[in-house]
């Protein structure tokens, strides 16, 4: 299909300007109402007009089209850029809808490319109603499938639900994590002090305010991102959707996952809850990213029970080790707090390690994604004749560490893993 050049949605500059625009308006209105100093007023007005004009010009000079198998974007006013993204290299197409965009009925289409082409492969913003068909069309072109017949079911319908996070459980889970409990403790102390000694509380409050805002934002961000997070299985991978204010929809192909992490904080374990996060290959630049997209580690299951997590892990890492073996008992002297949780296991294509002091953290890494391997032995470990094996994956978010294995075993594992990783790479 060869389309004509098309423009983005006319409201795009408004959404892009987003917060800046709102800030200007908020500053502008009172000064306009008060009719105060004309100088500042004109200056602010000029800024607003300038911002609007820039946004408008930017919208005017940006156009896109689907040309055979490429998505082409032309942009730039002074420095003209012509971008061409081959659809065959598309890993996934995500739909992102920030709060403001939802209000205005527009959405962003973001292409995740195989390489690190960054965040430039995005169409921000398009009308909400045309995003879903366009995505289907692009995916069809990407997979080189024939023209879809009218009665064919689009890929995004042929899926079935794997997990959905219930709101009350998400709220409870955030309240009982370690940081949540800490925040509540501080809050209680503040209130108690405020009741007993209102004078002293004022100082405490002003000191605690910055911290409270920080903690509040963090909790809000998490809630906003993970609200109603749904995972469904489709033919091309797992479809993840969710969000409270900003909605995101993305597809995770099994081949994109470079690590999985299952976290079970101490308090959650009493309830049998856990959290599953994925580390995805093909990192995007943070510039121009929606907040929900920042960071490499993404929650797949913000909170859920073990069985759901296992089901998700099974889908992303079918050939994972079922049994993890603890290190020798003498490792207890080196890691007294961790020892009861330490374990390691592998199959021919995947390693799994478990560790943690209060929280139980299990990491799975497919060997084809291993970047390098390391064998590390500290002085205490040498005395105990144990050593740790690290399996590094791209980025710095995660890596799997098999701690305190028997030294001979560790050396043997290092050699075997190097061999298996090579085999896994060659197959991939």
């Amino acid at each position, binding site marked *: 299909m060869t389309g004509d050049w098309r423009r983005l949605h006319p409201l795009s500059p408004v959404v892009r300007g987003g917060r800046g625009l709102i800030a200007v308006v908020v500053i502008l209105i009172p000064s306009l109402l008060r009719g105060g100093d004309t100088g500042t007023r004109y200056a602010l007005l000029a800024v607003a007009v300038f911002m609007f004009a820039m946004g408008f010009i930017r919208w005017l000079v940006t156009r896109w089209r689907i040309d055979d198998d490429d998505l082409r974007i032309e942009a730039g006013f002074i420095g003209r850029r012509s971008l061409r993204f081959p659809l065959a290299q598309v890993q996934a197409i995500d739909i992102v809808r920030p709060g403001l965009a939802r209000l205005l009925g527009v959405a962003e289409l973001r292409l995740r490319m195989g390489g690190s082409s960054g965040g430039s492969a995005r169409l921000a913003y398009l009308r909400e109603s045309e995003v879903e068909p366009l995505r289907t069309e692009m995916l069809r072109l990407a997979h080189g499938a024939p023209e879809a017949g009218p009665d064919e079911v689009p890929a995004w319908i042929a899926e079935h639900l794997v997990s959905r996070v219930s709101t009350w459980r998400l709220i409870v889970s955030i309240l009982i994590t370690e940081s949540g409990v800490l925040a509540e403790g501080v809050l209680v102390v503040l209130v108690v002090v405020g009741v007993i000694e209102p004078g002293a509380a004022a100082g405490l409050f002003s000191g605690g305010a910055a911290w409270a805002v920080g903690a509040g934002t963090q909790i809000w961000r998490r809630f906003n991102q993970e609200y109603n997070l749904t995972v469904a299985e489709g033919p091309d991978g797992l479809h993840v959707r969710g969000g409270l204010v900003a909605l995101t929809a993305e597809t995770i192909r099994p081949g994109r996952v*470079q690590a999985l992490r299952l976290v079970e904080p101490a308090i959650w374990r009493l309830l049998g809850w856990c959290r599953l996060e994925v580390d995805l290959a093909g990192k995007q630049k943070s510039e121009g990213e929606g907040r929900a997209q920042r960071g490499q580690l993404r929650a797949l299951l913000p909170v859920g029970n073990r069985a759901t997590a296992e089901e998700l892990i099974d889908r992303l890492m079918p050939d994972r080790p079922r049994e993890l073996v603890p290190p020798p008992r003498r490792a207890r002297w080196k890691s007294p707090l961790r020892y009861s949780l330490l374990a390691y296991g592998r199959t021919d294509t995947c390693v799994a390690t478990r560790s943690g002091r209060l929280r139980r953290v299990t990491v799975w890494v497919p060997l084809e994604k291993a*970047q*390098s391997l*390391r*064998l*590390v032995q500290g002085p205490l470990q040498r005395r105990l004749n144990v050593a740790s094996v690290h399996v590094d*994956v*791209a980025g*710095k978010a995660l890596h799997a560490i098999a701690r305190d294995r028997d030294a001979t075993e560790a050396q043997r594992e290092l050699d075997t893993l190097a061999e298996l*990783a090579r085999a896994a790479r060659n197959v991939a």
Partner: protein
Amino acid sequence: MSDDWRGISRSYLRLREVEVTVLAIAAVIVLAILVHGLWRVLAIAAVLVAGVVAGFVVQRRFNAWGYAERADDLLVKRGVLFSRLSVVPYGRMQFIDVTASPFERIFGIATVRMHTAAAASDARIPGLVKAEAERLRDRLAELGESQAAGI
């Protein structure tokens, strides 16, 4: 597996020894000016002992460095107290750089550093004679190209 381990150049050891010596001499001079009486003797003795210990440590650490080129990956080992052995597959190397500080240049050595996509891989080999550093760089680049794998 026949690992053909190579050590690094003795010039690296000499550079480190010079560094320790210069530091020790500087410390002795400063102490001789600032401290008086019996303390001066004790302080200088302490610095000298520390210098000898440091020289010993430098020697041990020098001996611990080693690298081996295997068919599919490069092995780098280092460290005495914390000993590390890194396995970096050629196919995973994104780029290789060779650096030499002014002091390293005086001693005719350079550091070769391999970068993978993982932030933690930290594979570097210091103290290579210039010719060997260049040979290694070219060889790794060549192997990296022929065995390159995606992320």
